[in-house]
Each structure stands twice: as C-alpha cells, then as structure tokens.
C-alpha cells in the first residue's frame, strides 16, 4: 500500500504549502494552545455530532418516550404509562412474531457460522492464489445483490410449481416441496436464503483470521505430531475464537432485525409463519398507526438484542481465547 510511502512527502508539502512563516514555538502559551485545540476538536466533530444527535440520539430517547403514550398521529398523544408494555406480554401474535424471529435467527447464525468456518478452513488449506481468489469471489458475490433483488429471484427459484429448485428435486424423485406455501417451508426457505447471501461475510472474516494464525504455532503442533483435524480443533479454532464471537454477535444482531426477505417474499405468511418482530412492528406502526405501541415493541426488540449480545459475551468468556 502506498500510504506510508507518501507520508513524508505529504509532511514536507504541508510545511511548504499549508504553513505560515514559522514563528518560534513558546511553551508559556500552553494553556491557550490547549483551549484552541479543544475548540478545533469540537469544530471537527460538529457535523457528525449534529447528524448523530438529531437522527440517532434524539430518536432513541423519543422512541422510549413515545412507548409510554398512545398515539395515532391524528389525535394528540395520551399518556398510557406502562400499558403498551403490558399489552405486549399478552399480545399473542406479536409474541409469536418474536418467537419466530428468535428461532429463525438462531438457525441463521448456526448455519452461517458453520458453513463460513468450514469453507474458510478448506480454502485456507489451499496454496494456490488463484483458487483462493476464485472461491472468495464466488462466496462474496451474493452479498453484492440487494436483499430485495435476492428475495425476487429466490422467490422464482423456490416457486413450488415452476421453480427450478423443485424441478431438480423432481429429477431426484422429490416432488412438489411446498417451499413458500407451507408455514414451516417458508421459514426454512427464508433461513436458507439469508444464509446463502450472508455466508460470504463470515467466510471472509474467518479466512483473514486463519491467515493471521502464527506459522510457528502451526509448525510446532505439526512437529509434535498433531494431525490436521487436531490442529484445527486444538490450535486454529481456539486462536480465532475472538473472530468467531464477533461474527456470531454481528450475525445475530442482523438476524434479529430480519425484515426485507419475509416482507417481500411472503408478506409475513403463510398465515403469520414468517411475520418477524420487525414486520409486526411495521404493521402496528405504519399500517395500524399505533405509534406508541410500535415504539414499545421497538424498545423491547432493542433490549432483547442487548440482552442476547450480553449473554453471548458472558457465555463466551470461558470459550474465547484472547492472545
């Protein structure tokens, strides 16, 4: 990379161009310099601070506040106390949506990590640069399509009458799999589609982590007579465990927010089989105009994500090995 090479030139140019005629630097003005530096710091974060405050910090607080009100946008909001939260815990369909989301998210994370790690280990064992670049490109390409595009073409492929997938399964003697037309089938299909698209992400993460495993450690284990499988489970996986934890956390946070694919492919159906937490939130908020209740669901989803992530970190304290 060229950055470190150009640095001295840049510094030299800075002194030529951006600089005023140099004055002797005096230490006594240190406090004034510090104050000026502070103002410069504030000015530099100003823009980001403005946008993040208005469109992130503020909305988080507003969502929290709104969750204690009843509001249909038309009439003025009325204070509801904890009513929206108690309603959540007796709202069968929304609770079911959360259950569906958790189950699908667990399936997605497990499959995504298993396939990502498995493929990364296999690719990592290959020396040829061509092979490595080819497989990396192949597994990354699905990520270049938008989730909407994936939902569209996968919808055609998984069509149970005309889809190519049932055509090929038919050649193997399995006919008419109700991929998107049965509740369980739709859940499986959406899990498969998300894993298909996202596996390249975990794959790339794991390949770069495996490349960073020190060679001397591997050589030592090889000299001690450890076979490839033993090296994998006793050396490589423990050494990359921080990356595995990171991938699991990211994958889970994303999966808990699953929206696009079920919304586009099944509209949350059949019935409410693929109505995820975020689809339920969308329906209560933007279709039924119950903004207060929708905000309460949003806050509960946030707390759930924080809790699960916290649990992951706690549980992995024993399993993750930091060098």
């Amino acid at each position, binding site marked *: 990379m060229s950055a470190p090479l150009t640095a001295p030139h840049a510094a030299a140019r800075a*002194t030529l161009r951006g600089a005023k005629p140099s004055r002797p630097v005096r230490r006594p003005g240190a406090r004034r310099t510090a104050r000026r530096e502070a103002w410069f710091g504030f000015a530099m974060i100003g823009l980001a601070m403005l946008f993040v405050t208005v469109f992130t910090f503020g*909305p988080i607080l507003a969502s929290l506040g709104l969750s204690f009100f009843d509001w249909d946008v038309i009439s003025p909001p009325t204070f509801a106390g904890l009513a929206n939260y108690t309603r959540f815990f007796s709202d069968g369909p929304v609770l079911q949506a959360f259950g569906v989301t958790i189950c699908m998210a667990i399936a997605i994370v497990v499959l995504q990590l298993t396939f990502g790690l498995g493929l990364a280990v296999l690719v990592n064992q290959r020396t040829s640069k061509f092979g490595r670049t080819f497989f990396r490109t192949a597994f990354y390409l699905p990520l270049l399509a938008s989730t909407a595009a994936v939902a569209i073409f996968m919808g055609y492929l998984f069509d149970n009458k005309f889809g190519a997938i049932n055509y090929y399964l038919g050649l193997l003697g399995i006919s008419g799999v109700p991929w998107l037309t049965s509740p369980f089938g739709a859940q499986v299909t959406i899990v498969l589609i998300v894993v298909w698209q996202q596996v390249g992400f975990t794959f790339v993460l794991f390949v770069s982590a495996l490349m960073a495993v020190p*060679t001397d450690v591997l050589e030592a284990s090889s000299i001690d007579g450890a076979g490839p499988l033993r090296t994998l489970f006793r050396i490589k996986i423990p050494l990359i465990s921080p990356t595995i934890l990171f991938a699991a956390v990211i994958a889970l946070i994303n999966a808990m927010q699953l929206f696009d694919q079920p919304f586009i492919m099944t509209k949350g159906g059949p019935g409410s089989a693929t109505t995820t937490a975020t689809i339920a939130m969308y329906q209560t908020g933007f279709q039924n105009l119950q903004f207060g209740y929708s905000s309460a669901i949003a806050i509960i989803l946030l707390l759930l994500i924080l809790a699960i992530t916290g649990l992951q970190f706690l549980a992995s304290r024993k399993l993750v090995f930091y060098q």
Partner: protein
Amino acid sequence: MSATTTAMSATTTIVTEGRGVSRHTAGRRRRAFGIGKIVSLIVLILAAVFALGPLLWTVTTSLRSPADAFSNPPQWIPFQADFSNYTAVFEQIPIGQFFVNSVIVTVLIVVGQTITCTLSGYAFAMISFPGKNVIFGAFLATMMVPLQTIIIPVFLIIKTFGLNDSLASLIIPALGSAFGTFLMRQYFMQMPRELGEAARIDGASQWGVFSHVYARMAAPAISTLAILNFSGFWAEFYRPLIFLQSQSNFTLPLGLVGLQGNLGTGSISVVLAGVVIAMIPSVLLFIFAQRYFIAGVTAGSSR
C-alpha cells in the same frame, strides 16, 4: 484443476499452509492428506456452484424470451440471447428514473459520510478536548441500536420538515454515522503522532496538519468506508419503503419489488433484467476495488 495435480501439490501444501514457508515435516501423512485434499476441493466446488447458481440463473433467465422464462429445465447457457427484456423493463417501469434516484441518494450519502466521519474520526483519535471519551462512548453505544427502533421518530422529523416522499428524506438522516466515525478513528489511531507534531513545529495550523498530513494517509480507510456505504445504501429497502410514496422517487430495490408485484408471474425475465441492471454498479465496483470490500468486512472486528 485435475485430480493428479491436486494430489501432487498436496505434499507441499500441508507444510506451506499458504504462507510460503516450506518445511518437509509432514511427508509421512502425504497419501491420506492427498485424498482429503481432493474431497475438500469437491466440497468447495459444490459450495461455489450453490453460491453462484442462483446468480447465473438470474442472468441467463433475463436473456430468455418472456414466454420461455419459467419453463424447465432452466437454460444455463444463453445460446440465443434475447435482449428484448432489457428494453422492455425501461418501457414498463421508469427504471432509468429509479437508477438515477439510487445514484443520487447513494453518492450524496457516501460523500457526506466521508466528510463528517473523517473529520470526527480524526478529532476522536488525535485531538484532546473535554468530554471526548464520554461523547465517543455515546457514539459507540448507538452502534447496537437497530434502525427499526429509531424509525418512527426519524419519520416524524422528516415529516415535520416537509421532506417526506423525497430523496432528501433518505439522504439527510444518513449524513452522520457512529460506525463511520468509529472506523475512521481506528485508522487514525494507528498513525504516528510525530508527523503532526513535526508539521506543527514547522508552523502548520491544526487544520493544515489534518488536511495535508493525516487526511492524505487515510485514503485506504476512506475507500473502505465509501465502499461499505455504497453497498449498504445502494441495496437499502427499509427506509425507502417507509419514507417514499410516489413512484417517481423510488430507488431501485423498491422499484423492482413494485415491478414484480405489478406484473405478476407473466414477465419474470423482464423483472430479472431489472435485477441484473440494479446489480451492475456493485459488481463493477467489486471488480475494481475488491480489497476494500474485504477490508470492509474485517473493519469492525478490530474492536
């Protein structure tokens, strides 16, 4: 690659492990590992077929005539490519307009975030000012918050300013980013402070140090952030779905879903032509800047 060359290269493979360090310690496991090598190659090729198959099907089916599009077996090689779908998609929906909308939204967000995040990331890494750690901590904390949690208040702000159903409603809320700030800060943190100090002694201003010394060195991180944002916002579906109402403002993902809904199952090949058109910029970018995509994946894991 043939099976024999695979088996032959297996002996060196195990000792080099892709790092070019050659030591002949594992010779006695040569044969067993040779078989494992072939099996692993078969598994990888199968996985690549599954990864690429749906994409290839999309491209080849977009080149079949609408009447044949849903007939099986799928046609994997377009012997008689029919490009009429690509003209049809422009006639049936304003896909040109969607494309332009997507370009405007994505480019402005990429440029805007590059500016705001480079400035703030630099300040958090290099400048000392009161409350810095608290503010940065608050930035970090928001990175876990799902978009859905804040969407209602953001929607209300948009409405208040009369921006709903406009491209600005997608652009303006996305101009700052906690993640982008974090990413840039991590990169600036690795840079030697001596450079800036030297330039200061030579009389450069605070701004001069940033713009002439450090910002120039940050090009790889800026590229990574830009690529991440491009692929993220180009594909965005959720905010456009909620913020946009009139078709003339739709971005590509929303427009394509509308196209699919309007046409039913009749013209799959036309819809798929639209899908292919929507993917072209991402694929082109990937071809020319692959390493920044890869850097983008690993960028967050250094936390």
